[in-house]
């Protein structure tokens, strides 16, 4: 809990410190080697100890705490670099094993033996058969980390990196810490996950700094790809099925495979708390399975401690932006094939700007669990039987959230994110001058809230905007008369409705992806700003505001990351931010609405408006579902519900009732459905092994009403929409 409450405080004060620190560092670096040369070139400089007094001449190889690690690769031989002798630190209790030995140890482990025996008992299968299955599971799973392959791969990787990116920044100070940590304790690497490139970059960074190459829990998607699957396996990827339900044998093999790496500290183990790539670029609520499996060895006292490293990887431009946009809409991406990320050579011709990799402060699970976990509870049964106490499970959840939040906190936010946020509130275009002003304003707000904004100090705001729009020329442009606007896709894909709505939506969604990177910074203040901004009374009691905040958090907690159980502190913190720096006025326990609705509250509210609108559409759609036979509500598959809600959205967009095409996102629809389920407004029912859903009309109406108070909602005429073969009638009944 303390970690999160510290979050706000710490991040708020962090920025000035960093700035001054980086300033110091930069002058130091420049002055020492330059002294002699500067004297010779007298006259060029006013002060003899300065060699470059035009800030624009100073390279961006180093900035703040970041260092570009591919800069030097542009000047010397890649092959020499890839083949160099690497002095890699090893865990102090490690016993060297080959990948084959690891597999063997897994198969011989007590845990697998125990599972095998149970299965034999239950199914009557023979030992050889069950063992064979276990072997095939290990074979499917195991990595085959090999230095030779790594070196070859490194050459390939570095070439790709140099092509794709201008700079790959790493906060180098963390590296020496990681070096010592790796010797002391087993290490878990938990990068944020916004692109396939994440784990390539991680391995690249570790290779670059002579750190042991991580083994990486990867989804099976890659395994299918012939060469690439092989390459990744040999570079340390191990493959895990997305779901293996109650397959005991798979569980046992998987758990043992992960844990044996941790206990013996063979390699740092890397996985994504988010479970999968965040297509929306916002971060996904954490998953606990992998985390539980990796921390169990500590709770069972098989290791003295485990160190968790949250790592934030931020991209100026995401490789998969287009792919994501179409995935979110649930329609196939036109032209190039969806899986061919790397086949598409053309991608190498494009500029993806910079990448920032920030290795956060390590979390010691021992320190983290002091006082909240009693490991003695495992003393009276064998350690290979999986078991975690309630306290341990709760702790794992909390840690997972903390890690995700720390990842978010350490993201480097590109100016483009802010441009995107402004553009989305000005879908018809905005004059460059005004855009620059807005972006500067927004940047200040984000900084005040503790975000690290990657804003070059040596360039004018105008130049920055120009540069960023240029990098993203596939989605935005500056017209000749100085208007910045979205580019419409040139592909003339027309769908069955006779328009290219989905193509347009994809263009808009790509912009949303970048705005999304900013949203976690603002979400808490926005959830306070929204009720203020939409309040029709003169004053709003803090208690009432708080309960509206709580409702919003419940609604949006599939979209954004909130630490469970910390709603009240978050609210207090956000409100005090608004009163301290954003002109919100509280008197006698109430917010003075008139005085408090201002540019801040309006802008913050509007950033989140599309979400509330999307959720409202979902509600309206659900309300329109007619009863089935016997007065029972009609049950539907969640997927179907989302799809049908999307159809309603498209209708509302076509009728110009809604501007934001973002509401077409199926991801948004799924999230809203889940939140409504947690709010009790939708129920689940299992039929033939599948989960169906149906609305609880009373609660749902209430939520719909609440939502329509926060935002301006379109009128709901009775419309009939055609869904494949069925006809769905949507009417205005509430």
């Amino acid at each position, binding site marked *: 809990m303390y970690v999160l409450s510290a979050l706000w405080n710490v991040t708020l004060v962090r920025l000035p410190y960093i700035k001054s620190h980086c300033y110091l560092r930069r002058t130091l670096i420049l002055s020492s080697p330059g002294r002699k040369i500067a004297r010779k070139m007298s006259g060029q400089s006013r002060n003899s100890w300065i060699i470059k007094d035009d800030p624009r001449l100073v390279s961006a190889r180093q900035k703040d705490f970041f260092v570009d690690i591919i800069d030097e690769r542009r000047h010397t031989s890649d092959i020499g670099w890839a083949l160099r002798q690497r002095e890699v630190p090893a865990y102090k*209790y490690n016993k060297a094993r080959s990948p084959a030995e690891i597999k063997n140890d897994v198969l011989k482990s007590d845990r697998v033996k125990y599972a095998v025996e149970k299965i034999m008992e239950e199914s009557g299968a023979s030992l050889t058969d069950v063992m064979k299955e276990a072997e095939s599971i290990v074979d499917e799973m195991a990595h085959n980390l090999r230095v030779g392959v790594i070196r070859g791969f490194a050459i390939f990787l570095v070439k790709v990196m140099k092509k794709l990116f201008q700079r790959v920044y790493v906060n180098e100070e963390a590296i020496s810490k990681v070096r010592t940590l790796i010797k002391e304790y087993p290490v878990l690497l938990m990068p944020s996950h916004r692109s396939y490139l994440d784990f390539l970059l991680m391995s690249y960074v570790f290779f670059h700094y002579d750190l042991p190459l991580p083994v990486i829990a990867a989804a099976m998607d890659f395994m299918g790809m012939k060469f690439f699957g092989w390459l990744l396996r040999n570079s340390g990827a191990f493959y895990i099925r997305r779901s293996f339900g109650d397959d005991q044998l798979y569980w046992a093999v998987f758990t043992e495979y992960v844990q044996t790496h941790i206990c013996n500290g063979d390699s740092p183990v890397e996985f994504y708390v988010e479970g999968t790539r965040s297509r929306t670029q916002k971060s996904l609520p954490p998953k606990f399975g992998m985390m539980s499996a990796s921390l169990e060895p500590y709770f069972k*006292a098989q*290791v*003295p*401690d485990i160190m968790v490293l949250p790592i934030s990887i931020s991209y100026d431009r995401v490789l998969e932006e287009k792919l994501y946009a179409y995935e979110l809409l649930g329609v196939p991406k036109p032209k190039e094939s969806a899986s061919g990320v790397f086949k598409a050579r053309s991608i190498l011709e494009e500029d993806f700007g910079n990448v920032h990799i920030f290795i956060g402060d390590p979390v010691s699970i021992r320190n983290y669990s002091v006082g909240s976990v*009693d490991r*003695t509870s*495992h*003393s009276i049964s064998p*350690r290979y039987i999986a078991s975690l106490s309630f306290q341990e499970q709760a702790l794992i959840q909390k840690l997972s959230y903390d890690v995700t939040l720390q990842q978010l906190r350490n993201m480097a936010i590109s100016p483009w994110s802010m441009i995107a946020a402004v553009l989305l509130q000005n879908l018809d275009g905005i004059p460059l001058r005004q855009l620059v002003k807005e972006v500067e304003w927004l940047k200040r707000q984000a900084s005040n809230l503790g975000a690290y904004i990657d804003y070059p100090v040596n360039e004018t705001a105008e130049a920055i905007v120009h540069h960023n729009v240029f990098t993203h020329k596939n989605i935005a442009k500056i017209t000749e008369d100085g208007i910045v606007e979205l580019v419409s896709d040139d592909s003339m894909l027309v769908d069955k409705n006779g328009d290219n709505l989905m193509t347009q939506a994809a263009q808009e969604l790509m912009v949303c992806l970048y705005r999304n990177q900013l949203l976690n910074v603002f979400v808490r203040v926005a959830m306070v700003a929204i009720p203020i901004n939409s309040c029709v009374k003169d004053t709003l009691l803090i208690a009432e505001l708080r309960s509206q905040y709580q409702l919003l958090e419940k609604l949006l907690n599939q979209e954004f990351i909130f630490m469970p159980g910390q709603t009240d502190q978050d609210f207090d913190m956000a409100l005090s931010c608004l009163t301290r720096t954003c002109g919100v006025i509280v008197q006698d326990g109430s917010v003075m609405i008139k005085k408090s609705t201002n540019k801040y509250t309006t802008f913050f509210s509007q950033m989140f408006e599309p979400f509330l609108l999307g959720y409202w559409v979902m509600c309206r759609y659900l309300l329109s579902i007619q009863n089935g036979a016997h007065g029972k509500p009609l049950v539907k598959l969640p997927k179907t519900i989302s799809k049908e809600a999307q159809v309603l959205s498209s209708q509302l967009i076509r009728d110009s009732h809604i501007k934001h095409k973002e509401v077409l996102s199926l991801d948004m629809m799924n999230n809203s459905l889940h939140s409504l389920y947690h709010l009790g407004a939708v129920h689940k029912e299992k039929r033939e092994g599948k989960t169906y859903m149906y609305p609880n009309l009373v609660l749902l109406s209430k939520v719909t009403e609440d939502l329509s108070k926060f935002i301006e909602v379109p009128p709901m005429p009775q419309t009939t929409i055609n869904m494949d073969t069925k006809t769905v009638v949507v009417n205005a009944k509430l």
Partner: protein
Amino acid sequence: MSQRHSIEGKDCATDVDPPSIPKRRQELLKWNGWGYKDSKFIVNKDNHVEFTGERYQLSGHTMTLLRDWMIKTVGISLDHKTPPQPELTAKDMPTPVRNEEFLADIRRTNISHSDDCQDRLFRAHGHTLSEMFILREGRFSRMPDLVVWPASHNEVVKLVELANKHNVCIIPFGGGTSVSEALLCPEQETRMIISLDTSQMNKILWVDEKNLVAHIECGIIGQDLERLLAKKGYCTGHEPDSMEFSSLGGWVATRASGMKKNIYGNIEDLVVHVKCVTPRGTMEKSCQVPRLSSGPDIHHFILGSEGTLGVVTEVTLKIRPVPECKKYGSIVFPDFEHGVACLREIAKQKCAPASIRLMDNEQFQFGHALKPESKSTFTNFMDGLKKFYITRIKGFDLNTMAVATLLFEGAKKDVDAQEKRVYEIAAQFGGLAGGAENGERGYMLTFAIAYIRDLGFEYYIVAESFETSVPWDRCLDLCTNVKDRLHRECKERGIQFPPYITCRVTQTYDAGACVYFYFGFNYRGIQNPVQLYDDIESCARDEILANGGSISHHHGVGKLRKRWLKKTVGEVGVGAMRAIKEYLDPQNIFGSGNLMVGDPEESAHNSSNSNVSLPSKL
């Protein structure tokens, strides 16, 4: 007050041998350290460590490697000494609480007693680090008000009756080797406290050769017991490392464990019959049988009761003929892990010799440093050869190697057969026979370490041992994790010198093992080292429990480990123990406050926190 010592050992008339430890302990034993006054480690004029006296194999020898080892491993400096305070005298001790009616009554009996301040001081403590530091640097705020020396079971009965009548607190005292703060007087005790010293009840009352049992008074100490039995050709085989000083009653009261338990068993296996005087009356069984099915075994109420229920006065113990053959041995392993695996296998095959202990590398090196200066160049030469063989030919690393020490006992042919089997198993785990001498030195280390701690005290070192029992599957992890925890705590608490941390697997069982840790550090530049030591040891104990280890294998709970008792036996368990206490001793006459008695938080730290005021001269 008058002192009536029964000076001539006329009570022990059955045997001509006087007991090794005199009634006035101060005549023979150190007042503020371990063991005999004449035996100690000193730094001699050549700046080498030497062991004085002539009692032990090491006596009179110089350990030429030891000084450098101490400098290297714990960073001592011969220039920085911490000498102890001068001997405590009456003015430094609390005035005795007097229960006049009790005193009047006791004078009417013939029971020997004394309130001499040295008699009281010698019975005010055991041998934990914090108790030693009180002696070296501080004061006791509470100590026994009177020492009594009953000479027989009946005198004990009389004493307990009087105490019960006058509400006087009794703390039984055996050999004073307690390492759990069990002998410390509770600070808040306002009643008169008498220390019931059992040392004069030291006779072997009879030996029954038909059943191979002996009936013995509780105050006899280990070395006397074995010496007297040996005269008749027998032994008990119970040899805790403290056997030179600890008593039979003490063993029963703490559930002691002897080094050779693999053949002879622990104290609970050796006891056939016990007589225990409680305020409710004497508790004993009416038969002397090998096994009994009659409900919970009342012996087990007494075993490990730590002086909280009554006084053990007489015990019938199993005895064995003195073995024909006794042989040391050792096995060298490439590392500790191989050693643990080997010990596990030996336990599995149930062929463990009388004693088998596995020392980790740190302890192996310590043992090496204890080597007396070799008189002959030939031994040096041989040592060189051995080392060459092990490190060069066999590829062992001197910095990871671990050594198991072995002691075989029995008939010659059995010993030979057992030896062969053990070495065969060892070979499967990469173990090499390392010779008898290494083995013997390993056992020497055990007794030497108690003396050597006193030398450390002189040079800013605080050190202590603690132990636990653990299932086999967790044994290695426990050793690793506890050591890691200790190192980490030392670092995080700002101890500047490398701590000395070592362990050995010191007993093996079917289902697990006993692990023994030594932990010490150089406290130069640190405030209140005793408290710091205590805090770190507590962390280690937490870690032990988290690793599936126990509160104690044989040292007991006393007051030092009370706070982990409930966690160990559960709320109901503690409640049941308390119910027994309540029935046997409703007035809390046996008020030492050990184990389940009283609130763990209150008394646990009476010694190190408040009982002492250590000058911060550092």
